[in-house]
């Protein structure tokens, strides 16, 4: 049974039919301009990106100020907005250049920053007041009274800790009038974010400044120290001690989150491919739109779940939103499932008259392969690849050069940014 909140205008009745009037924002990750464009094209209302400074994921390909400008302009055409993550906990040496950086972000038209360190919050307020300030999950925000604190500090939005459950979110919404952003899909820290320095100790890389080396995902052996004697708490053949959580997947909880009035539903993964972003965003887009249009008759479609699985390379779980995760939501002695479909090409152009698609190759494929096209403007369909040509119309049998421009015949119309997958046999 869904928890209904009455103090916020989330829903109303039109002609005897209940509709959702407060549609949450679908927030996508993007590690590059190309990913940003794909995310927006596939239905994201907002995209979060990293700049070249002050953000975590220091090894993600991050945006220059000029790329941010282009991203903002592109998003604007779709009515979408851009947020920039500036969520490091700064050391003294990181304080230089912050003001200029925030002013530049503001000037290019970014809507807000996602931030953890009060240094950056206060500096932003002072030098770039047009930017919205969103509290990062790095602050491990887990209770309504702390939410109230950040509201009193004038923040626009808070991103909750990943450890917060549905009932806790309901209470936060009830107690405090502030936008709430919650994760719905993607990889997650197994520690409270910001409260883990395994990387610092194990590899001298600062996890809270973007250096995380994911040591939590390694295997360890568990021992007990009994009066100075080390006794193994495992036997030969036992799976090692592991701290790897299954990835978050809340697709089936989206209706519940919408009814709670959560303002922004966030997909994680700035390092992921355009294929991942396109697949995940398009599916969540469909779920949100379908539920809001007709909540009474809403049902999760099997095809949506199958579609999501096509870009999954790790097992998934509903950790914390649906209650304290059990051991079943961790991975022990577990081999990742192989992806059933590979991303094989990105549509650049389609010639209506000749029926020829121009494609950028993203993975090996050849004449005779079974492939699938999908995109926001087409119904997904499967076909067999016929004759392939290169850019200069030379015949070829295999497309085996990354990013090569190739062409072949497709008898249904395609559009720019549609994607092609190949079945992984």
């Amino acid at each position, binding site marked *: 049974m869904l928890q209904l909140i009455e103090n916020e205008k989330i829903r109303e009745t039109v002609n005897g039919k209940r509709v959702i009037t407060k549609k949450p924002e679908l927030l996508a990750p993007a590690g590059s301009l190309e990913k940003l464009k794909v995310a927006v094209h596939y239905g994201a209302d907002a995209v979060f990106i990293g700049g070249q400074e002050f953000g975590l994921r220091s090894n993600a390909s991050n945006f220059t100020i000029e790329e941010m400008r282009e991203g903002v302009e592109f998003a604007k055409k779709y009515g979408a907005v851009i947020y920039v993550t500036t969520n490091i906990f*700064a*050391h003294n040496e990181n304080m230089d250049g912050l003001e200029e950086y925030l002013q530049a972000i503001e000037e290019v038209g970014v809507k807000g920053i996602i931030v953890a360190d009060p240094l950056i919050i206060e500096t932003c307020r002072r030098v770039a007041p047009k930017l919205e300030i969103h509290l990062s999950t790095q602050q491990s925000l887990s209770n309504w009274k702390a939410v109230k604190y950040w509201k*009193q500090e004038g923040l626009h939005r808070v991103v909750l800790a990943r450890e917060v459950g549905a009932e806790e979110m309901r209470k936060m919404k009830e107690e405090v009038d502030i936008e709430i952003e919650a994760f719905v899909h993607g990889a997650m820290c197994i520690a409270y974010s910001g*409260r883990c320095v395994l990387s610092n100790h194990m590899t*001298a890389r600062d996890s809270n400044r973007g250096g995380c080396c994911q040591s939590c995902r390694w295997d360890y052996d*568990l021992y*007990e120290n009994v009066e100075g004697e*080390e006794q193994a708490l495992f036997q030969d053949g036992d799976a090692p001690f592991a*701290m790897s959580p299954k990835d978050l997947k809340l697709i089936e909880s989206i209706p519940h989150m919408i009814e709670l009035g959560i303002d922004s539903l966030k997909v994680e993964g700035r390092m992921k491919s355009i294929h991942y972003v396109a697949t995940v965003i398009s599916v969540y887009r469909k779920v949100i739109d379908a539920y809001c249009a007709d909540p009474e008759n809403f049902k999760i479609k099997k095809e949506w779940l199958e579609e999501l699985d096509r870009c999954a390379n790790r097992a998934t779980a509903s950790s*914390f939103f649906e209650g304290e995760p059990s051991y079943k939501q961790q991975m022990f002695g577990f081999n990742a499932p192989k992806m059933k479909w590979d991303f094989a090409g990105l549509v650049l152009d389609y010639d209506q008259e000749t029926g020829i698609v121009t494609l950028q190759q993203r993975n090996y494929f050849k004449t005779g392969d079974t492939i699938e096209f999908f995109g926001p403007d087409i119904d997904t369909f499967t076909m067999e690849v016929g004759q392939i040509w290169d850019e200069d119309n030379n015949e070829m049998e295999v497309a085996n050069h990354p990013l090569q421009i190739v062409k072949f015949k497709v008898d249904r119309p395609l559009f720019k940014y549609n994607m092609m997958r190949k079945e992984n046999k």
Partner: protein
Amino acid sequence: MTKPELLVTPKSVDHIKALLDAGADAFVIGEQKFGLRLAGEFSVEQVKEATELIHSSNKKVYVAVNALFHNDRIDALDDYLREIQNIGVDALIFGDPAVIVAVRELGITIPLHWNPETTATNWFQANYWAERGAKRAVLARELSIDEIVEIKENAKPEIEVQIHGMTCMFQSKRKLLGNYFLYRGEAMEIENRKENKNMFLHDKERKNKYPIYEDLNGTHIFSPNDMCLIDELTELFEAGIDSLKFDGVLHSEEYITTVTNLYRQAIDAYFDQGEEVYEEIKNELLEKIEEIQPPLRPLDTGFIFKETVY
């Protein structure tokens, strides 16, 4: 130059007596429902008893309310703060801003020490929380000596730095040990062992051993080494650091008492007899710690002389 406070973590009320004799200036106590990774568990009654004892020696007592709170403990936090207010302790140690809101709403007058552990990394933050009521900032243990000195130069509140003991590297809300045993179908194994707090993870590649335990707040994993700065205190003394903390979590009462006394000797030597005397005895003090150091706990200097990249 003012003498820094020597702050320690007692395991029991009786232990406080021994630590007062050993030369401790201040004590961190509390209970796991509100405080994180405490050396001992003190009920409200025991906090009262401890406070009387500590105050009768003109020393200070701080109560830890530095948990990452979820909604389920917010009401209990209010009640707890009222009780602690009546006892008259010298400070509350907090990390979660919920405590700031609660203190304001309840009119609590106990001074606040800001200690979020890993995220206290620059002087701006220290001053930010000072403006919101913190009298002291406790710095992250992942900082270098240069960073600590620069923070002290620019910070308005008192600065506290850890000088000895284990540091927490990781806190998860999940029951990671329980889950591991459950996965293997051995639920009782964890129940039998939970109270002992003597498990560790072996990292074969780095040849490190990380203590790990579970409590109300989740799963905690600790540094493979005990930091020990007894022979490296000069720069901290010169910088004027206000409080030097020895965190005795997961150590025995005897060890905590002995090490406290050795730091007492180090601080007194420097401030009462001069830098030369400290320089003369510091290696001897270090050797005394090495003699009683548990074999599974090598000593190092934490991040004081170690750079991190990112």
